[in-house]
């Protein structure tokens, strides 16, 4: 049976892993390559590395980080943050990533989704959507959550799929870093609207939150960062909890 995936996310800035609350107050959490290997051996089904600074000067550092991280990692590895062109994506793939995640650039140049999918395959293209609730709707934001796009999240996810995205990485900005649980309503709305897998993100604080987003949110995968770095819960504990809740996960791992 196809299992629900647990994805460990590393937010990196200038070659170090950091984690903030609602995109602010960054704390240092270690070396990306070391953390990726540690998460993988303790049971993470995938690793995502997000370059949260993505400034021009730090691009070289990022590629080096990707290379170092990929070297001893034998589970799927995604890199996102600041990818604007086919050339940017190529450089990331050449450094050892299996998938790239597009966010701002997918909104400003939606053709890029298709261009990358055509060259590297749809399975290699994740479209990341940062969603915020306003009234009874979900709106997509870009630039680290600072800029509204005017796009409805569900409509944008459907368009991304049509343009060739292989997966949707859906982050609830309202829940990100709060540890109050994933936004199941948001996740369900998107998961039911598209045929491609949806990765839920933002708000993980306990094992029960993961069970909820798989059951109620119909997520195909769930992503979390700080819960793993600071040892709030071990991956094997998390997976044992999910198994006892009759959710199928890769086990043993």
């Amino acid at each position: 049976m196809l299992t629900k995936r647990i994805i460990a996310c590393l937010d990196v800035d200038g070659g170090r892993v950091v984690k903030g609350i609602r995109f602010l107050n960054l704390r240092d959490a270690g070396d990306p390559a070391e953390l990726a290997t540690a998460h993988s051996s303790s049971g993470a089904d995938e690793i995502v590395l997000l370059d949260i600074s993505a400034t021009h000067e730090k691009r070289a550092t990022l590629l080096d980080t990707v290379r170092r991280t990929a070297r001893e990692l034998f589970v799927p590895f995604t890199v996102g943050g600041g990818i604007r062109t086919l050339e940017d994506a190529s450089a990331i793939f050449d450094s050892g990533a299996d998938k790239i995640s597009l966010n701002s650039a997918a909104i400003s140049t939606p053709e890029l989704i298709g261009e990358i999918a055509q060259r590297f395959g749809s399975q290699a293209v994740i479209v990341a959507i940062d969603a915020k609730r306003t009234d009874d709707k979900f709106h997509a934001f870009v630039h680290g959550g600072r800029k509204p796009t005017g796009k409805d999240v569900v409509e944008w996810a459907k368009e991304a799929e049509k343009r060739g995205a292989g997966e949707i990485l859906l982050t609830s900005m309202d829940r990100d870093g709060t540890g109050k649980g994933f936004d199941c309503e948001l996740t369900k709305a998107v998961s039911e609207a598209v045929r491609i897998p949806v990765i839920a993100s933002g708000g993980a604080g306990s094992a029960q939150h993961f069970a909820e987003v798989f059951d109620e949110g119909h997520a195909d995968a769930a992503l979390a960062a700080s819960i793993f770095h600071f040892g709030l819960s071990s991956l094997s504990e998390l997976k044992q909890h999910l198994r006892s809740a009759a959710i199928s996960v890769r086990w043993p791992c």
Partner: protein
Amino acid sequence: MTIAIIDYGVGNLASVKKAMDHIDADSTITSDPKVVSHAEKIVLPGVGHFSATSSLDRSGLRDAVSESIKRGVPFLGICVGMQWMIDSSQEASGVRGLGLWPGECERFPASVKSPHVGWNQLELRNGSSRLLREISSGSFVYFTHSFRLPLLKTTVAECEYGGRFSAVVEQDNLFGVQFHPEKSGPIGLQLLRNFCSL
């Protein structure tokens, strides 16, 4: 004498190479038919679209692979590389596979999400597989694909997702895997070790 990892202009060959390096297998990424002809073993990786395999025809790599296979050289097709081993795929009508076994790759039914992405289980068929030595039924491996091989006589492991399909095929010196051993953790590395030590 080495393992040739065939580069036909698509896919992430670096991760296959990295996995080979990790298990201390001597391998080289190549698009030269001569290098392929002299290789001790051949790996054809592949992600992306079936139509990309048509470049194997133009470059002379198809002939090099066919001849090596006839001489008994072990061949491993991964993902699209495995799909290429049969006649054709619904993904690219008119593009010819190697036709080692009759059959056509098909889409997943509309009842399940596609692509099939993630960790799923191998169900081993009875009989001994050299490629799956020390790998047990129920092991999890990482898949990412939109098309799949039907069940064949040469299927040695099946997978279930919107119906059953071939996860591993094997006959004599011919091996194919639909999943990505280079991305399937310790189980995947064991499979590559098995192939390299044939």
